[in-house]
């Protein structure tokens, strides 16, 4: 059973619908007992880091996430769920969960590429340049693009935690992977077939980074 963490951060049902489409059973919950019984956990999120951390702490889910990672079962972060697994976010100057060393930064105000000013948020389809292979991203063309919508990006301090980077005026870490954790800035549930394939791969993944 796949569990989606419910911490009142945006619309969790889009992840649920994608899982339904690929035939995976799931539950959406904030109950730690139910989360612990899951085989895989998805940590999604849309919204602001400040409110998200308040809700997580209230339900003691921040410390629970660390326990889960320690046990070695697979965890997937999506969008805000990826940004707040780092130590700190510049958004609302928030101390975050700290599963991965580093911080979440805001895109610089003057962002440009080949003379054209780039908009913030980074909204739309963009590709990911992978540094190495990973089971969750197998069977996907390197040409695939994914749906992004964000103004902040994760910046892990350890380069080896970066699995993929994306170019938006600057090259930022769009996918990070550490042991049984894989986390992405884009929305796999809104990224068409390649996105559904990532979710499918994740549901089959045992948490080993081969």
């Amino acid at each position, binding site marked *: 059973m796949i569990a989606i963490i419910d911490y009142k951060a945006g619309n969790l*049902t889009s992840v649920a619908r994608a899982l339904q*489409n690929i035939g995976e059973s799931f539950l959406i919950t904030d109950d730690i007992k139910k989360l612990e019984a899951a085989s895989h956990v998805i940590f999604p999120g849309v919204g*602001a880091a400040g409110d998200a951390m308040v809700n997580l702490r209230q339900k003691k889910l921040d410390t629970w996430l660390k326990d889960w990672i320690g046990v070695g079962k697979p965890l997937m972060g999506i969008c805000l769920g990826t940004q707040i697994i780092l130590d700190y976010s510049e958004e609302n100057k928030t101390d975050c969960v700290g599963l991965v060393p580093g911080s979440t930064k805001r895109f610089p105000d003057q962002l440009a590429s080949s003379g*054209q000013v780039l908009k*913030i*948020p980074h909204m739309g389809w963009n590709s990911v340049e992978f540094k190495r292979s990973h089971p969750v991203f197998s069977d996907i063309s390197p040409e695939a693009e994914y749906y992004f*919508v964000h103004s902040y990006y994760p910046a892990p301090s350890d380069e080896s935690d970066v699995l993929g980077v994306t170019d938006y005026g600057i090259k930022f870490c769009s996918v990070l992977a550490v042991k049984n954790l894989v986390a992405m800035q884009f929305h796999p549930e809104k990224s068409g077939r390649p996105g*559904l394939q990532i979710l499918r791969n994740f549901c089959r993944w045992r948490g080993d980074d081969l």
Partner: protein
Amino acid sequence: MISKRIIPCLDVRDGKLTKGIKFKGNVDIGDPVEVAREYYEQGADEIVFYDITASSEGRDIMIDVVKRVAQTIFIPFSVGGGIRNLEDMRRVILAGAEKVSVNSAAVNEPEIIAQGSKAFGSQCIVLGMDVKKVGISEKIPSGYEIVIHGGRKYTGIDALWWARKAESLGAGEICLNSIDADGTQEGYELNLTALISDSVRIPVIASGGAGEPRHLAEVLTKGRADAALIASMVHYRTYSIEEIKKYLSEQSIKTRMLW
């Protein structure tokens, strides 16, 4: 680098497309869910639904359509038309739409943008702007005026001022429709699009006037739009989305080519 988005727009009334769309077999399809699936398969990057339903029964049917679309396609889609308050937004978003688009309601009550952005995140709130060229005056320094009610009512609001205002209130994106170009199939209003796109930091979707792939190329380069809305040129099967994307790619305009 980010791709330019190609976004088909579907007009819905009482849960049915206002005009049937012909696909394989040349049969008219009136179900917005079926047509959304077809465009998803063809490589649409996003889909816009514009609900022109007048009755509240019709609105309930639309919510059901949104739910079915959300189970069928796995790309973002937005719903606009008749969104008047926070509760209307909530219903559409909970039904599975990524974004809601507000137009005349925001003109009448700009705070709805701030409320929506605070409640759901600015990425959910699209400002729809219907604009007419009126000539430069003291009241309308950009020469472009906001109109409502399908272009029948002038508001006295300057389009450039309104775009900036909406951005400051928390709109995450602007869907910019030129009433002058709309329905002509003779090309987008490039000056207007460039003017607005250069003046805000949020993405701008150009709308109105698309008749051939060349028009999209123009608005995505000279018009500096981040995305292009299309309707008739794909609904009548003059072009497929794939053909349009191939053309853009030949013009060195990057779009998502794999789906």
